[in-house]
């Protein structure tokens, strides 16, 4: 298993330092939260990890692989999948096709096989269809498989994006605000689902999220950024009571109810849910306040 390690990573856009000397490491198999107020540089960190942007200094490694020189497609090849803050589905492709695009890397059949329709081509297609349908069932989207992806309701589009990322068979899943726009119930479902995915596929999950109900409920370790700099790191309980975090969030005007939620919502709802869940979540339950 591989850890994701960031050391002294900085990134500037013109004069703006979006990420400044950020270091953290994500142990394999963890569900790791990356939080902070708007503009804290969370998404930029994702973009740096996935090669969309190149960082100025520092190092980003995944296991033994240095991610710096890799283009986004190569990062995907290493086993890092992501979702996007603004949903980026292939709008003219169907739900199923959206998933199928993501398995190009795993195909044995190459271009010539497609031209000459060899046995390998058919086997590949069948195999990938199986996998895609199975993943769609996991996310409850199987009935929409042949619908255009834009016809899905918003929450399902988010789920489809996660399903598409899972199609890569990733070792590390980066989720950028997966709960955005979800209601309480949907967010609860998402929590269960993230945990289940991690256990089932031996994933490492890094989560950027504003919804504290989700962050505090599912993350085992949290890293807090503000204005591109690290202000706190620790378990949800530690982070929640960290003075700098409180300052950062309460200093902002509209984020305080998030904190309330973080304080109130999870304990009750969470204990009930994580209790009967699979063995790995015992850890979470322990870490709950």
């Amino acid at each position, binding site marked *: 298993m591989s850890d994701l390690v960031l050391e002294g990573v900085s990134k500037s856009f013109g004069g703006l330092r979006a990420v400044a000397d950020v270091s953290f490491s994500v142990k394999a198999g963890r569900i790791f939260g990356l939080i902070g107020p708007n503009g804290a540089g969370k998404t930029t960190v994702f973009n740096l990890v996935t090669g969309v942007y190149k960082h100025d200094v520092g190092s980003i490694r995944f296991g033994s692989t240095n991610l710096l020189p890799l283009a986004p*497609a190569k990062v995907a090849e290493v086993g890092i999948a992501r979702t*996007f803050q603004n949903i980026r589905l292939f709008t003219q492709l169907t739900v199923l096709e959206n998933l199928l695009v993501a398995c190009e890397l795993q195909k044995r059949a190459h271009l010539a096989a497609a031209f000459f329709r060899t046995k390998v081509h058919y086997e590949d*297609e*069948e195999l990938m269809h199986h996998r895609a*349908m199975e993943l769609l069932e996991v*996310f*409850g989207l199987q009935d929409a498989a042949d619908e255009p992806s834009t016809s899905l309701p918003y929450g399902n589009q988010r789920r489809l994006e996660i399903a598409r990322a899972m199609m890569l068979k990733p070792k590390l899943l980066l989720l950028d605000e997966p709960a955005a726009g979800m209601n309480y119930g949907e967010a*609860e479902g998402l929590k269960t689902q993230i945990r289940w995915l991690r256990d089932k596929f031996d994933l490492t999950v890094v989560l950027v999220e504003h919804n504290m109900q989700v962050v505090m409920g599912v993350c085992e370790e949290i890293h807090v950024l503000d204005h591109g700099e690290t202000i706190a790191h620790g378990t949800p309980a530690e982070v929640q009571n960290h003075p700098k975090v409180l300052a950062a969030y309460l200093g902002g005007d509209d984020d305080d109810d998030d904190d309330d939620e973080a304080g109130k919502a999870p304990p009750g709802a969470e204990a*009930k849910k994580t209790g009967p869940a*699979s063995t790995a979540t015992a850890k979470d339950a322990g870490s709950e306040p």
Partner: protein
Amino acid sequence: MMPASGKGVASVGKKAREPSKRGWAFAAAALVVVVVLELGLERMIPDSSIRQLLMLAACNVLVALSLNVINGMAGQFSIGHAGFVGLGAYTSAVVSAHLHEAMGGGEVTFAKSFVVVPIALLASAVVAGTFGYLVGLPSLRLKGDYLAIVTLGFAEIFRLLIATAQLGEKETIGEAAAKIGKDGVVGPFFHMLQVGITSLGGQNGYAGPKNQGLPLYAGPFWVFGLALVLGVLAYRLKFSGWGRALRALREDEIAAAAVGVDPTRYKVRSFVIAAVGAGIAGGLMAMNRDGTPTVQPDNYNFQASFDAITMVILGGSGSVTGAAIGGVLITFTVKAIEAVQSTRVVQDLKSSVPWLDLNALRMMLYAAVLIALMIWRPEGLLGERELFQKQKLRPLKLPKPSPDHPKPDEPDRAPAAAANEPAKPVVAAADEPAKSDGDEPEKGAPP
């Protein structure tokens, strides 16, 4: 686990390959048809201009099909496709003419064409493909509009180099070659290049090494046969994972890259594929049995590129059958207008209305149709659909893996087995939060 999956897939695979038996029958029938056409087209259609039109249509279909790979499927915008066609035409012309000489000249026969045509077309494909790679490479760095400019630049450079490289008064190639190195400013390499290009005949066109006309080896067998074969290949390309990836790339490059579709590789390859197709089309045009025995640079000018774009857009960008329809339609209108132009009525009309330029009128009409299409139906006639779209990408309801061959250690299977449990909380929201009672996915294999 591999044998299990292999077995499972084999059973579906057999089903999937079932149509290919019909495919063989289809191929055999097509073969018979093209051979019959090869031997009997002259008798069926005595008018050589109509034969030429039919064959030209087939060649143009190939041009449209290949441009469709870049402009339609990959969503790039090439406005210099005629450059690749021209490269192919010139390459085939040179190769076939020299091969013909080497084989002792004489009659152009169907038997000999089995030597000449494949070699010439292969050369065309390689040359055009190489240039396609070189032109596609900038797509590493250039986005949309700039790429269009590079393609235009390439096509113009190609055409202008050939068209303007003309021998001096009564100068032979040998004399020109003797001047190599004597001319101060231009280095020997460039001079050699210039002499080489000059031997292609400049503005007047290339008509073989001794200017006696090109040997026209590509009969209906080759033209229609290759049009069919390449059409099928284009279709297969579209309905493969590769075509899907191209479509995804066209929609959203960043998201495609994030799931492992390398934009550069896919784009460059699509460029190469398109260039190869165009090269073959050009080669067939140059060797077209009922065509003119020369190739001329002006056949591959910007207007030709524009025609190619019109073919693709009119039929529906991204649609293989659409591109084919577009190719046929455009070819026939061009010829129809030429035919109309030579009729008595129009000739008379022209003598009274001297400014009437039907070709200009045709281009105006095309342009107007194109603009109107862009405004009201930007996806073209067919859009991305196909005329005969029976090939579903997937059976509508996936056959559930039968319980009689369980695959306990097959990694791809397990999630589905356990899927129902975690999926439910998602759908049914939080009121029944942890209904994952059967939460041991490991033994959650099919009963």
